[in-house]
């Protein structure tokens, strides 16, 4: 508990206290000025879209890795973890070169929101796959076979049998991805030079010495992230009943 306090709790408390250090008005200004609002909106919209695409694609990838058989599946299974291992700045650099200006594959996504989304899909890829995969492995195919033998179409079996079993795993993986997207810095630092993103604005504010507005925006970002995570958890526990 002491260790946690020294390294985590005291610093977080410092940010909150700094945000309100010059009064509620300054805090409000630091969150609602036009740059902060644009940054928060961009961050939130991109994170939500990435979390949605990521949960869909992650589930498909997990399905293919568990239920399909093909050559090279083992290699594929092990490279899923690559984004956990690969430093995010390297991902940023690679995507900038590959899909940015002067791209060898002929797409110029430099300075767009799309390339930020791609970077976030890269870093959050393992979250959903790694959370769905074990559940899918344990899932008993007998129930599915029973449903099919009772005349259920594949779409019905998937919706009524498979999806309910996978949903908690998909939701928790998506929640982790979303939280990661909201705060991500490393993988997008080279890509988001023209699109205001909350974490980069905070970084610039700290570098230029305006720590109060940085702290204000930090608190704003944290509150939004936590609100959505709690909302998601609440929705999931209602569905689970």
């Amino acid at each position: 508990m002491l260790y946690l306090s020294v390294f985590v709790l005291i610093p977080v408390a410092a940010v909150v206290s700094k945000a309100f250090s010059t009064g509620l008005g300054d805090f409000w200004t630091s969150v609602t000025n036009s740059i902060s609002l644009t940054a928060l909106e961009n961050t939130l919209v991109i994170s939500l879209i990435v979390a949605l695409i990521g949960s869909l694609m992650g589930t498909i990838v997990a399905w293919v890795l568990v239920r399909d058989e093909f050559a090279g599946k083992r290699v594929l299974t092990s490279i899923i973890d690559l984004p956990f291992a690969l430093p995010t700045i390297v991902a940023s650099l690679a995507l900038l070169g590959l899909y940015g200006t002067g791209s060898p594959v002929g797409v110029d996504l430099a300075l767009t929101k799309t390339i930020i989304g791609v970077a976030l899909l890269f870093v959050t890829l393992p979250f959903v796959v790694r959370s769905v995969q074990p559940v899918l492995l344990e899932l008993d195919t007998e129930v599915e076979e029973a449903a099919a033998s009772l005349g259920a179409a594949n779409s019905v079996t998937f919706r009524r049998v498979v999806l309910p079993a996978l949903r908690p795993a998909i939701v928790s993986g998506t929640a982790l991805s979303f939280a990661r997207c909201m705060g991500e810095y490393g993988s997008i630092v080279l890509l988001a030079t023209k699109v205001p993103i909350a974490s980069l604005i905070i970084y610039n504010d700290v570098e230029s010495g305006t720590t109060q507005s940085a702290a204000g925006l930090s608190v704003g970002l944290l509150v939004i992230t936590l609100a959505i995570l709690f909302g998601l958890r609440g929705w999931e526990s209602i569905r689970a009943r």
Partner: protein
Amino acid sequence: MLVRPFWRYSLRTVALAYLAVILVAPVVFIFIKTFEHGLATAWSYVTTPAAISAFWLSVLIAAIAVPLNTIFGVGTAIVLIRTKARGRRLLDALIDIPFVVSPVIVGLALVLVYGINGWFGSWFADHGIQIIFAPAGMIIATVFVSLPFCVREVAPVLMEVGTEQEQAATTLGASSWQTFWRITLPSIRQGVAYGVVLTTARSLGEIGAVAVVSSNVLGSTVSLPLLVKYRTTTPGPGGISAAYATGTELAVMSLIVLLAMTLLAPQRKEAR
């Protein structure tokens, strides 16, 4: 669920195409870019004094952050799973803070606490200890962001192993210290190892939190990820090509970590 061949191949194609675009292509691209001017050029970029100092700084950060978080991780997991201490649920929730807080906010927080004008900054300054804009700050930042990994890997394993063997050991007269070293630790070994690997990967690759507390002076507080960022903004021969070389250096280090992960993964399944 019997998926018709058409759907099976469609799903497989979609999954493989997605992974190719998002995952494989960027990684291959980095390697190609690094070696397009030959091995010697790439080698010269990773052996400049700045690059060597960055390499050792990254190693130093990992060498301190990883053991600290491993000891803390195992200890906390035991408290969470094996004891009924009060505040256990609160602790459980607090552990995940670093997963939710942006690394940049972590950096800012450390500046506010340990910086010159920070809460404890003046005390440290009076005693001649510099934390912010020094390696110490970068180490603290890394400890923060990589803190939950070990706990989260060890806790489920500890839960699964159960307490029977530990109880047997205690009944036979083993002290709690003996029980820990002889029974508990060997049975959670795989979880610990996997946690260490994840912590190491994160420590080597962290940039957001350390960028804020680094002075960005080459040769002193620039770790490898920061060097990549620095070089991408530098024009000329020490610029983008050198950044690719450093990127590959980091990628190779992380591939070694990934290899360790893969080697540990099948054993984890057997352990279950």
